[in-house]
C-alpha cells in the first residue's frame, strides 16, 4: 500500500529552452525506509507514459498497480526491504506534477500551450531538488528504462557525486532519425486534431482524443517486436471471417484500438508532445562534437547496462555505444544483452534472466553499502 505525495518548490528553475519556471510541484511516491545514513535511496525514473506510481497499490484501488511493480517491492529485484525507493512524476507530466494541465498562477488559467518545452536535463534538475528535500545527498542507484534510462545517464553526467550506480536499461545515447520520425507522426496526429486548439483545448472543454489515439497506436507498434505481434495476434480475425469493412477485424486492430482508447482517456496531449520532444532533443554527446565518451567523462558511477535482442526501437547496438564510451573512460560497467522476444517492452516485463541480473546487481550495491557500514 502506498500513498502519493507532493513536494512544492519555490525556487525558480531555469530550463534549457531559456525560460524559467517560478514555482512548481512534483508528485512522488516512496517505498521502503530511508536509513539513518540516508545512503540506501534509489531513484526510479519513468519513461514516456508512466508516472511516480512505480510500485504497490493505492488504498481502495487494488487494480491500480505501479508500472514497475514486478521489479520493485519487498523481496523483489529492487528490494524495498533494503532500499528506499523514490518514484517521481516528471515536470510537465499529467499525473500530479506541474504541467500543461496545471493552473498558471500568473493567468489563473491552465498553462496549456504556454507550458515550456522541457528536456531530460530539466527533469533531472527538478529531480535533484526533490532529492534535496528528501535529504538524499547521494543515491545508491538511479534506475530507469528507455527514456527513464536517459535520465539515469543525465544524472550520472550532471551529478556524478550523487549517483553511486546507474542502471541503464533499454536505452540509447540519442534517438535515431527513425525514432524521431515515429515521434513526429505521433505529434502530427495530435497537432492536426481539430480538438487540439493550438494546445489550449482545456478551456474549450474538449481533448484531442483522436490525435492521442493515433499517437499511442504508432508508439505501441514500436514497443513490440514483429515476432511478438505474430505470436500474440498473428492474422487472427475477431469474428473468424472478414467483413469487407473498416471495422476492427483483425485481433491486432482491436488490440491497438483498445490501447488507444485506454491511453487517450487518461493521458494529456500537451504532456505527450513535450515528452516526445524531450526524447528527440536528448543527445549528451552533441556538446562534445558527437563524442559520447567525452560526454560521459564526468560520470563516475558504476553502470549496469541492459539491452534486449529484439528491441528495434532502442536496439542492443545503441546500448553498446554507451558501453563503448564507458569502457573508453575505464568505468565500472557490466553489460548484458537479454535474449527476449518482446521488443522494447521487454524492460517492463517479468523475464527471469533479466530480473535475476538486476537483483544480483542490487545485491552488489547493497553489499558495498554494508561494507562501509552505512546501512
Amino acid at each position, binding site marked *: 500500500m502506498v500513498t502519493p505525495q507532493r513536494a512544492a518548490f519555490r525556487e525558480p528553475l531555469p530550463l534549457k529552452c531559456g525560460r524559467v519556471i517560478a514555482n512548481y510541484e512534483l508528485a512522488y511516491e516512496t517505498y521502503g525506509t530511508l536509513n539513518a545514513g540516508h545512503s540506501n535511496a534509489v531513484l526510479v525514473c519513468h519513461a514516456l507514459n508512466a508516472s511516480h506510481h512505480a510500485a504497490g497499490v493505492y488504498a481502495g484501488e487494488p487494480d491500480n498497480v505501479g508500472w514497475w511493480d514486478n521489479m520493485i517491492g519487498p523481496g523483489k529485484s529492487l528490494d524495498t526491504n533494503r532500499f528506499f525507493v523514490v518514484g517521481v512524476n516528471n515536470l510537465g507530466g499529467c499525473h500530479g506534477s506541474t504541467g500543461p494541465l496545471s493552473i498558471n498562477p500568473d493567468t489563473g488559467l491552465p498553462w496549456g500551450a504556454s507550458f515550456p518545452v522541457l528536456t531530460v536535463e530539466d527533469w533531472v534538475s527538478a529531480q535533484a531538488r526533490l532529492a534535496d528535500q528528501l535529504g538524499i545527498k547521494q543515491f545508491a542507484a538511479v534506475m530507469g528504462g528507455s527514456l527513464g534510462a536517459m535520465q539515469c545517464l543525465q544524472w550520472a553526467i550532471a551529478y556524478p557525486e550523487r549517483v553511486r550506480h546507474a542502471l541503464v536499461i533499454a536505452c540509447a545515447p540519442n534517438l535515431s532519425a527513425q525514432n524521431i520520425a515515429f515521434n513526429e507522426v505521433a505529434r502530427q496526429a495530435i497537432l492536426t486534431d481539430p480538438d487540439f486548439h493550438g494546445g489550449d483545448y482545456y478551456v474549450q472543454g474538449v481533448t484531442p482524443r483522436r490525435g492521442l489515439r493515433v499517437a499511442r497506436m504508432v508508439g505501441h507498434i514500436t514497443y513490440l517486436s514483429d515476432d511478438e505481434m505474430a505470436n500474440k495476434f498473428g492474422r487472427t480475425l475477431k469474428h473468424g471471417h472478414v467483413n469487407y469493412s473498416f471495422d476492427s477485424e483483425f485481433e491486432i486492430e482491436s488490440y491497438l484500438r483498445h490501447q488507444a482508447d485506454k491511453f487517450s482517456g487518461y493521458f494529456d496531449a500537451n504532456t505527450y508532445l513535450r515528452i516526445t520532444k524531450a526524447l528527440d532533443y536528448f543527445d549528451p554527446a552533441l556538446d562534445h562534437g558527437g563524442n559520447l565518451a567525452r560526454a560521459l567523462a564526468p560520470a563516475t558511477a558504476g553502470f*549496469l547496462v541492459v539491452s534486449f535482442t529484439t528491441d528495434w526501437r532502442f536496439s542492443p547496438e545503441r546500448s*553498446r555505444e554507451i*558501453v*563503448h564510451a564507458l*569502457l*573508453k573512460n*575505464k568505468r*565500472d*560497467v*557490466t*553489460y*548484458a*544483452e*537479454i*535474449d527476449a522476444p518482446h521488443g522494447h517492452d521487454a524492460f517492463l516485463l517479468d523475464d527471469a*534472466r533479466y530480473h*535475476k*541480473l538486476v537483483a*544480483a*546487481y542490487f*545485491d*552488489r550495491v547493497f553489499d558495498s553499502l554494508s561494507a562501509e557500514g552505512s546501512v
Partner: protein
Amino acid sequence: MNGISIDRADFAAIAHWVTGGARVLDLGCGDGVLFKYLKRERDISGYGVEIDDANVLACVKNGVNVVQRNLERGLREFEDQSFDYVILSQTLQAMRNGERIIHEMLRVGREGIVTFPNFGYWRNRMHVLRGRMPVSENLPYQWFDTPNIHLCTLDDFERFCSERGIRILERKVLTQGRAVNVMPNLLGALAIYHFGAG
C-alpha cells in the same frame, strides 16, 4: 574461499605473470572466478567478456564487471592498447577464428595470456592411436558434442606465433597441476603461454 578453487594451478601461473594493479581483460571469463582470483591476488581491474547468460549472472554475483559479447565478433567495444593483459583461458580451442582473436588480443592489450589443452599430450595421442578421439580431464567432451573445434599442440601454437611475429614471453606446461619441464609437448596436458607483439 568464496567459491574460488585456489588449487587451480593455471590460475596461480597466470597470477604469477600478471603485475600488481594491472588492467586486465579476461575473454570467455565464465563465471568470473579467475578474474576474482586475480583481483584478490594482484589487485587487478578491468572486465570479463562472456557470451553465456548464466555466466554473466554469475560474474555479477562474483563482483566482476562483465560485458556480454560473442568473441567471434571481435572486440570492437574495446580501444587499442587499453589493457596490460588480455587473457583467453581455455577458450581458444573453441573459437571458430582463433587467429583473429589472437590479433584482437594484441590490439586491445599490451600482452596476451592464453591457456589451452595440449592435444599432443601422450594420453591424447594414445586415444588417437587406439582409434578413438580423446576424452580426458582437460578434454571432457565426446566428439559429437565438443565445443573444442580447433585443438592444437604446443608445437602448433609456437609455430603459429613465430610465423606471425608474435613473441612468446613465457610458457608454463602443467599436468594435473604439476609443472612439466621435460618433453612438454608429449608430457604436458595444459599449456599456458604469455606473449606479446613481436
